[in-house]
């Protein structure tokens, strides 16, 4: 393996994960307790509901140097606040397309539904998102140098 390829393989992206307290955060916990392996690239921010996550927050993560973002909430129908994730689903669908429109790579910003019992799925998603972001390389477009 060449030096560059090695470096690339070793590079761990920084991914900000906004996880809903009631499902995905507990799912992440379960993944840990059950000792499922996943890359150490996620920085978790616990939020009360996926509906709490605004476009401002996602962009703030990117601006602060995140290579990727994951927002994860309860499955539709399971939101602790009944409908938070239904509203969030519309907002994120539109936001994701919009960010792609202005030239942000589709795989940088990701969304998922993971319940409290889905530890394995959490590990899978964490691995998948990390792989996708790794392929893209470090984020540059919206990163502010302080």
């Amino acid at each position, binding site marked *: 393996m060449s030096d560059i390829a090695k470096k690339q393989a070793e590079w761990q992206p920084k991914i900000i994960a906004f996880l809903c307290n009631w499902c995905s955060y507990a799912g992440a916990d379960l993944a840990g307790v059950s000792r499922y392996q996943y890359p150490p690239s996620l920085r978790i921010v616990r939020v009360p509901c996926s509906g709490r996550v605004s*476009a*401002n927050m996602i*962009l*703030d993560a990117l*601006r602060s140097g995140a290579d990727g973002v994951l927002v994860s909430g309860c499955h*539709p*129908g399971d939101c602790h606040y009944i*409908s938070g994730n*239904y*509203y969030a*689903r*519309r*907002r*994120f*669908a*539109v*936001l*994701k*397309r*919009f*960010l*792609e*429109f*202005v*030239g*942000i*790579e*589709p795989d940088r910003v*990701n*969304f*998922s*539904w*993971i319940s409290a019992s889905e530890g394995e*799925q959490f590990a*899978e*998603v964490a691995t*998948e*998102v990390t792989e996708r972001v790794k392929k893209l390389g470090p984020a540059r*477009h*919206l*990163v*502010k140098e302080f």
Partner: protein
Amino acid sequence: MTTANERITQELRQRARQLLESGQVAAFVGYTSGSMPMVMQPFVARTPEETDRLEWNSFCVLNLANYLPALLKSLEPPRRPGDPPPEGPLPKVGVVATGCWSRNMVVQIQENQVQRERLVIIGISSRGMVDRKKVLGLVGHADVTSVKEDDNSLLVKGPGLEQEINRWDVIRDNCACCVHPDPVIFDHMIGDLKGERKLGERFKQVEEIENMSVQARWEWFTSEIDSCIRCYACRNACPLCYCPTCFVDDSRPQWVGKSIEPVDTAIFHIIRAYHCAGRCTDCGSCESACPMGIRMRILTKKLQKDVLELYGTEAGMSLDTPLPLSTYKLDDPQDFVLTESLKGEKK
């Protein structure tokens, strides 16, 4: 012979005068001409005499809905936060509305910024407004001292300049792709309703960009906003931007830096446009207000296109349809959700 706009002006003055004289409204919002050709000035008439200053032409580019929330508030008796609302009907405001402006009023009513019963809306089916920057481009940015309008042409004059321009060549981009010229709510109409326009290439400007590669899109976006001076005229001209504290002014957290550093300018434009998702009527006020000629309207047009594609609704078409992003359906599309698309792959 009088032109269509002259006839509208006459009728507008009459209607506004009558509304003010009879005491039905306390103020009437329209346009008057300013000191520069091709720049019209929003104008609030408060006495019957002042209505003689009202004017209507192809340069009424700023959305008058923008002035309603503050104007209505200013007409209420003063009260402290927590005081009970005043009793009895509050003073009303008369306002001119084209298709898009009326749709912005619908949005404002739905968002509780404006009360329908306090508005008397004079509807005008729009023929489209002229882009002053396009006119200046056609005359080589020469000094223009007067512009005389006919129904289909403009006579532009200045020192050593006399040029006739076809009005339809210099129509604003948003007006050229507008399909709803008729007001959706009004109390009186001036002229007739025109009906929906059929337009094959309504989203052409957006599609051209969608078809580019990711990298090319980023380059387009950054070069488009490159000259932005962050004056926020685009935000101030927009009837959706009534937030007491805009995100650009927040300091904890500070979502966006205040300088014209490219990253901050990009974030400003992304968030400003996104805040208008599902609410923007493509009135073009933002773009017309920009001193730098930035075409930031394409961003909100993209959002309008996606919302229509995904949820089948457009902002402000009727008071009874909730705004697309403040409602949901159980089976809204979710193929963008990673866990859903992975499920699909596994199957």
